[in-house]
């Protein structure tokens, strides 16, 4: 399995999804070699490193862990592939980082990305290098099927298939259209398309994504299957002592602050609500290229004392954030799946999600609005803040609903896909 990030070093939903998926597959008796690109400092001479259980800090209980690591081999590949960064910004980042390593402050990348000066500054070159490593792994390791997650790893998957002749499954977590709207990067599009054409099976995370794959990439519908993501049952019950310290209701946005996530609709809806009811606080957690624009807009609307920014949240802080929230909003313009609302519901937070998200296909107990309909969004948020019966209903049924969405079930679907090509 080729991925690009793995807990605890995650920047988005993909790492969590891969972890859940491998865990589920391990439970169904499959064995997995997981390959992840990772940026090293100068010490890394070897291209591939086998990582054993003791070196990886993953939050699962002991017993679970042991059986998990019995079946999963974790490999890190020396590469500076950065999740969620397109070729253009990749170049900017590496350039910038070369110029002034010290002044490089962005929180998303600082912990993940340390430029060593050894790697190519062109992302496409990196992808090609990763593909080379993919094919070399394919010759050395013993396996039955290749599974590649998102475009950065597709070339590696294809190379592995060509070397080994084993069937290839590619997993579409997000398409280039989701990331960039209509102004797509054609190189990325080409890699995605080639990956899916070469693959024996394509797994999409929602029917929404399946449609895009079929309509815009011209992939044969017969080999495209939807497997909805799931969510791990909450394993951190020890936050009960943590309560919010403000009197107002707290409405939260959590995600990368980028075009795809629709942060501006959240800001505008917040403004509508605050005009009527000042006793609500809004929190925008995360970071991204639209952060500064959002900050300015909030200041322009004069609601800075009611609208807060937290920057990138990790680990405990995410759970703390949910513990403090009364409503969670995901106004994504285009979201192949969207796992965060599930995490919110798991933490007893009612959610408002956009109809343009894959997760809307499977959730019943969530308020669904069009991302552009800020009036409806404001209505929904206001309702969940003020009508106790409504929010209680959503909390109770939402929790049940999420608890039934298990990776165990989702990975069984994936296993079925595997079996169809073996």
């Amino acid at each position, binding site marked *: 399995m080729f991925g690009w990030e793995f807990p605890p070093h995650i920047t988005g939903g993909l790492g969590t999804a891969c972890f859940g998926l491998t865990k589920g597959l391990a439970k169904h008796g499959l064995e997995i070699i997981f390959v992840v690109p990772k940026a090293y400092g100068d010490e890394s001479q070897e291209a591939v490193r086998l990582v054993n259980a003791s070196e990886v800090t993953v939050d699962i209980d002991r017993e679970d862990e042991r059986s998990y690591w019995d079946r999963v081999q974790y490999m890190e590949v020396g590469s500076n592939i950065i999740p969620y960064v397109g070729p253009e910004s990749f170049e900017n980042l590496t350039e910038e980082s070369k110029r002034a390593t010290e002044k490089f402050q962005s929180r998303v990348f600082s912990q993940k990305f340390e430029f060593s000066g050894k790697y190519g500054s062109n992302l496409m070159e990196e992808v090609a290098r990763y593909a080379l490593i993919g094919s070399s792994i394919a010759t050395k390791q013993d396996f039955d099927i290749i599974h590649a997650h998102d475009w950065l790893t597709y070339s590696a998957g294809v190379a592995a298939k060509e070397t080994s002749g084993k069937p290839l499954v590619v997993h579409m977590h997000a398409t280039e259209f989701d990331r960039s709207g209509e102004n797509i990067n054609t190189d990325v599009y080409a890699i995605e398309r080639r990956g899916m054409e070469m693959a024996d099976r394509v797994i999409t995370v929602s029917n929404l994504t399946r449609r895009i794959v079929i309509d815009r990439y011209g992939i044969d519908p017969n080999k495209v299957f939807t497997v909805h993501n799931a969510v791990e049952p909450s394993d951190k019950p020890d936050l009960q002592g943590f309560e919010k*310290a403000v009197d107002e209701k707290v409405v939260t946005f959590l995600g990368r602050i980028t075009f795809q996530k629709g942060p501006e609709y959240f800001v505008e809806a917040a403004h509508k609500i605050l005009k009527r009811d000042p006793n609500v606080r809004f929190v925008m957690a995360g970071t991204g290229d639209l952060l500064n624009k959002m900050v300015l807009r909030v200041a322009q609307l004069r609601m800075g004392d009611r609208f807060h920014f937290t920057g990138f949240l990790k680990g405990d802080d995410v759970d703390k954030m949910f513990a403090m929230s009364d409503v969670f909003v995901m106004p994504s313009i285009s979201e192949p799946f969207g796992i965060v609302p599930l995490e919110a519901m798991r933490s007893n937070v009612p959610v408002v999600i956009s109809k343009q998200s894959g997760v809307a296909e499977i959730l019943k107990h969530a308020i669904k609005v069009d991302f552009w309909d800020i009036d409806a969004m404001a209505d929904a948020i206001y309702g969940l803040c003020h009508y106790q019966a409504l929010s209680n209903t959503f909390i109770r049924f939402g929790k049940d609903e999420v608890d039934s969405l298990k990776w165990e079930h989702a990975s069984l679907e994936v296993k079925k896909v595997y079996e169809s090509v073996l």
Partner: protein
Amino acid sequence: MKSICFYFQVHQPFRLRTYRFFDIGRNHFYYDDYFNRMIMRRIAEKCYLPMNEILMQQIKEFGSRFKVSFSISGLAIEQMELYSPEVLESFKKLVDTGNVEILAETYAHSLSSLKDAAEFERQVKAHSEKIEQVFGVRPVSFRNTELIYSDNIGAQVAEMGFKVMLTEGAKHVLGWKSPNYMYANAINPKLKVLLRNFRLSDDIAFRFSQQSWSEWPVTAEKFVGWLDKINPNEEVVNLFMDYETFGEHQWASSGIFNFMKALPAAILKHGKYSFSTPAILAEKLQPVSAIHVPYPISWADEERDVTAWLGNDMQDESFAKLYALSETIRNSKDIELMRDWNYLQSSDHFYYMCTKWFSDGDVHKYFNHYPSPYEAYINFMNVLSDFQNRVNKKYPDTSKMFQEVAEKSGQIVKQIGNQANEAIEDLTAKAKSRIKRGEESIKPVFDDIKSLSDARIKKLIKDIEAEDLVAALKDAEQELVNKVIPNMSKAARKKYDELEQNLKIKKSQVNQIRKTIEEKLRGLI
């Protein structure tokens, strides 16, 4: 003899710690103690202590011929007390020589003069008190935060009793005029105004160590040469700058300390110049004209205006939201809130949010510990939110409450008024219709008897036969009967009692008799 007036600004803000959304409502300590202490100690060692030492030597050497002036913000004094009391001691020694004047300013080095006259006055008073308490002298000259000045601010300062105020000799205000004279406030000419000679001041403060500058290196002799070029009729050269210029902005290695050691001797050498302080100049010099400054100016940036602190949305919002609390806090007299109120007002917080990076970006970056103005804004707003909560919880907005009560009582009054109006209209309508129905209805009727005085009733019934009376009172209201009976003569009463039991009479007859009585009644009224 031309006067040279040195003035140094000493200020350190209480910088905020990273205050996150999670801290709101949970943690009310806002300051980065470690960072503030570190900076204070560093500047104390690099600038305050060595430079104070140099000034002390000069005063020892030249006595009262050498003079300088300082303004030290309340926040800077507090930090010296906390982190480096020896600096405060050395300032005290300087002031004790009598050759160092301490100027008044706002306690928090705040922008209150631009927004809130009452708060401005409170802070100026608080600062003067602090200065008096620490140095034992009460300031008589005034300089506002970052030399911010306008006609109105000047007028308010004059109102507070100061004789002279310092500001920037901004080009767009002076035009062809020279900053090297004494000017006066345009509204209240009693306030004298000293203008900074920005060219000569910045030659020391900014350009001193700039090796790309054609005049580099600057020596004391060269500097005096520039002074000599100034028209001999001009009266004063004002050299105003940050005290941190010495050793912090211009490092010791640039030779700034040696320059300052040599400068007084070079200036005093030919007897053409004398050192002075604003208070002395205010006594000595007469204003040559009023200076018109309709819009606030300052000594900051190329623009010499207040856009370093205010102007973009982030600055404007946070500034307005902060000062919205002003009155409540001032009225509260709450020591803890007042402390944070002072610290949060310091102009630096707004400076950090400045987005005009182009002309003065370097200077801004130098003074800013936030990675970007956005971070500065986010952090400040988080702190402000918590502060708002504390203020509002402790002192619920009374004006708002009053407004609410007033609104509610207004509604009630309106309701009452409406009801009263309705009732009055109703009654008038009834009266009108009654009048319309004719004269008759306002004629006295039988029932009106009960509203007559006893004497009148006596008169009325005096010559009515008892029989008639009985008949008339039959079926009449009890109240009326009770009124009439006691007024009957004894004889009539007796007869009435007899007849009352067994009188049979027709309704028409009763009406007949009642009518005659009514006739009589009319005569009576």
